[in-house]
């Protein structure tokens, strides 16, 4: 790698981390410093273009887009974290067991492959319909069920190659139990692929959550969310495109920085993961 490219890498990583940190700060503190109440209606300020008073303009109820976009960061991050956690809790144990025990793996991986035959948004939509109501928990389950199988796949492939290592053989020869090998020798080494995959899970899941909210089947419309704002702004898209532009830019920046972080972590932690994750 040339020196210039290394600097470029560093810069993109710095950029990604910078954006992420600002978004984290925004998601924690925005309700305390945004200029307007994100839900305050103001009929005299309907569909105002971005200005000094309203940095990102206003929507059809006169609500401040800047305040709503910043506050929407919180719900996005809560959902992204919960969905990644959901994928971890189900994906890691299932993946390890499938990778370590061939018979278990044969059954579980078949089911996982079949689950992955349903395109992400279709599975999530069907699960939302089955669970009946829009809501945070239901969104976490629906989108989590989409990403957990992908986590299983990654953990499974990594376990398959890890268990062939000489140190696993040595541990077995020394009489270590399967449980001990799984925890002390395999699970520990799964950390890098799991961290990398979680970063990508976060990126994809917030995009999918936004799509669900955009379609009106995610979280209830009274919670400000980027997807929900874009859905509400559709009617006024030609007259007031800023209702859609700004939440979209925030969403794209979040996804972009998580993707950059994931790429960087992958190259840093273990370049061989390129073929798996």
């Amino acid at each position: 790698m040339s020196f210039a490219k290394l600097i470029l890498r560093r810069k993109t990583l710095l950029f990604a981390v910078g954006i992420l940190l600002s978004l984290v700060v925004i998601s924690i503190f925005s309700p305390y410093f945004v200029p307007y109440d994100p839900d305050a209606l103001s009929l005299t300020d309907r569909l105002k273009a971005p200005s000094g008073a309203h940095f990102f303009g206003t929507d059809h109820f006169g609500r401040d887009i800047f305040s709503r976009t910043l506050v929407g960061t919180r719900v996005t991050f809560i959902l992204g974290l919960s969905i990644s956690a959901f994928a971890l809790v189900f994906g890691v144990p299932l993946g390890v067991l499938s990778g370590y025990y061939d018979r278990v793996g044969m059954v579980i991986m078949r089911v996982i492959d079949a689950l992955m035959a349903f395109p992400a948004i279709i599975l999530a939509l069907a699960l939302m319909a089955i669970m009946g109501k829009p809501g945070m928990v239901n969104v976490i389950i629906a989108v989590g069920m989409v990403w957990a199988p992908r986590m299983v796949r990654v953990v499974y492939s990594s376990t398959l190659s890890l268990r062939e290592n000489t140190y696993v053989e040595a541990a077995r020869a020394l009489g270590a139990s399967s449980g001990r090998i799984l925890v002390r020798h395999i699970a520990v080494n799964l950390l890098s692929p799991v961290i990398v995959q979680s970063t990508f899970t976060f990126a994809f899941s917030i995009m999918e959550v936004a799509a669900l909210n955009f379609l009106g089947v995610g979280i209830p419309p009274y919670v400000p969310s980027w997807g929900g704002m874009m859905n509400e702004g559709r009617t006024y898209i030609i007259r007031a495109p800023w209702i859609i532009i700004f939440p979209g830019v925030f969403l794209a920046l979040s996804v972009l920085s998580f993707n950059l972080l994931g790429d960087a972590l992958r190259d840093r932690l273990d370049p061989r993961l390129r073929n798996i994750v």
Partner: protein
Amino acid sequence: MFSYIVRRAAGMVVSVLLVVTITFILMQLIPGDPASVLLGPNATPEQIAALNRTWGFDRPILVQFYKYFVNFLRGNLGESIFFRQPVLRIIGQRAETSVFLGIMALMVVVGLGIPAGVIAAVRPNSWVDTSLLLLALAGASIPSFWLGLMLMVVFAGKLHLLPSSGYTSVIATGNLANLKNLILPAFALGFVNAALVARTARSSMLDVLRADYITTAQAKGLRDSVVILKHALRNAAIPITTVISFTFASLVSGAVVTENVFALPGVGSLIVQSVLKRDYPTIQGIMLVVAVLYVVINFVTDLTYAFLDPRIRYR
């Protein structure tokens, strides 16, 4: 080759079985009595009894599964609550839009992705390469529905170049100009995947360009275009084809939202409508059709590889 086909076909059958089983189990999770859920709130007792006969909802679960499976094999995916028509027929009516949208999006994917990747590989670290890398990153991070909305603002709202929404059947009216309505959606949908294909095309071309036979071809004095297009691209084709076949699932996912953005009467907007109306038979039917299609496409791609690259058959 024959034994390879048989092995893969058996795998495909197992996958289809599992897909059917998963949809069956999912539909069991809907709270409430299945017959009344499927018929909606206005069902008469006679209708409920008739539905119980066809699907066996009043029988043990294994009998239900058996009936479900037999109905699936006969192409009976149930009747839509909302449209009061067989689900398969409704999907058929909506298929044209989605298929044309998919084909046009695929043209964007291949037409933009492969040339971009090849150019970037031939001139690594040039401005073309760097901007491609940036575009690919952006493509992977921009939600397709947002891109669709932005294209709508610019090309339909400001420039008035292309229609912003709706689509009338080309097959029914014979008017090819209707395809204009699919240009913006196809671009919104294809762009993300084009970025992915470009990245793969770039890296597999870079690998191939280092091979000895490329040096030989250059040493023979062949023109660059011949070396790149004939010797390199052909050998880089397999990974590129893989990524293109992966794009099916992502195109379907994207189409669900894109059809909704551009008010296109396709299968994607049908499933969203059905979710909002709690039309479970339609949701289930679309899940089945899409997943089975996915399994079949995977099967065909695998066979294509085995045909293109004999080494695969012996793995």
